[in-house]
């Protein structure tokens, strides 16, 4: 944790918000975020940010490319497809719960449900679909739900994220997610932004920090460290814990709002999940 503290001090010393124009609609946030990261990494093409740390480091990228012939998530995608296509006890399938039968829709998640007034993530939609059809919900962070999510993402490869903020309730959810991203938590007193806005491209122990822009587009992921697939909220849990903050519930309101905010910033960037990460 010593390195973490050194970075913290550095962050405290250099922390100046990029000069911003007045007003903060999600679209203005997104444009300024894109600008911020393009200035920070002028050699990285915009679409590359979805590859996280691999967009920032040549060695890491080579290791990654050498894996791409036999990506470790292939098995999960195949398993996910089988589960996706296997009928529930009532004879229906997941397809019945989704637009376009659930094929090629990842880029529209999470969305804001204006009637229920809440953010619906892909994993939440998967479990709600199960429950609506009389099945038990799956665990949120790994296992079958990650496989189904991986399969659904794979059918959306290359589609551009298109997240909308349709009304004031949605805007409040977006703002809550934004607040979460920028507020310092835990004994180490880090915000998500301390690492992923202020320090992407820097190393923190053996890890190379990815930029905020593009985060989410590659999920779910197969991590070498996990030795298996995990969902985005599993990753949130880990990042909270690393700064000694008590993680919140996977698919609870806070993490869903956080995902909503983060994914909005990916609008126009391609779906590249599932992916591999160290």
């Amino acid at each position, binding site marked *: 944790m010593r390195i973490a503290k050194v970075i913290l001090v550095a962050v405290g010393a250099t922390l100046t918000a990029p000069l911003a124009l007045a007003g903060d609609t999600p679209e203005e946030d997104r444009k300024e975020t894109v600008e911020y990261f393009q200035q920070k990494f002028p050699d990285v093409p915009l679409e590359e940010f979805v590859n996280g740390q691999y967009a920032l480091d040549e060695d890491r990228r080579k290791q990654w490319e050498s894996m791409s012939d036999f990506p470790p998530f292939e098995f999960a995608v195949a398993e996910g497809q089988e589960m996706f296509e296997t009928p529930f006890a009532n004879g229906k399938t997941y397809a019945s719960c989704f637009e376009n039968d659930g094929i090629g829709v990842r880029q529209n998640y999470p969305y804001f449900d204006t009637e229920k007034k809440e953010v619906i993530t892909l994993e939440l939609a998967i479990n709600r679909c199960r429950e609506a059809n009389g099945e038990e919900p799956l665990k949120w962070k790994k296992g079958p739900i990650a496989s189904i999510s991986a399969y659904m993402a794979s059918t959306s490869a290359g589609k551009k994220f298109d997240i909308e903020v349709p009304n004031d309730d949605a805007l409040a959810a977006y703002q809550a997610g934004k607040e979460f991203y920028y*507020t310092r938590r835990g004994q180490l007193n880090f915000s998500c932004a301390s690492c992923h806005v202020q320090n992407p491209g820097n190393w923190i122990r053996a890890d190379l920090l990815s930029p905020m822009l593009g985060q989410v587009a590659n999920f779910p992921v197969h991590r070498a460290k996990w030795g298996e697939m995990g969902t985005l909220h599993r990753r949130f849990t880990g990042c909270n814990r690393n700064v000694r903050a008590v993680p*919140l519930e996977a698919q609870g309101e806070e993490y869903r709002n956080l995902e909503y905010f983060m994914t909005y910033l990916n609008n126009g960037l391609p779906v590249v999940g599932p992916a591999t990460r160290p």
Partner: protein
Amino acid sequence: MYKPLLILTASLALSLPALSQAGAKEDFNEVYSKVESTHNQAGTYQWTTTANQLKAAKEAADSGDYEKALEMAEQALKYAEQSLEQRKQQQEKWPAVAIGN
């Protein structure tokens, strides 16, 4: 000749820890519930540090070592107070560091 003195010393030696243990138990319970409520007030800003420390304090109390438990609970209280303070401060400060604000 030395007997009364011996007994006196012995009884003091025995009763003092017992006495202070009884006081420590009450003190511990009081501090412990204060930590719990402060930790709860921290809401989404809770520290694992506090939670771990509180658990360790509880374990010490369960094993009967109330002095150690009290000491640990007091440290946990400091963590909980810091996390609550962090919550208050961050809710005001974050907009100044956010892109787009």
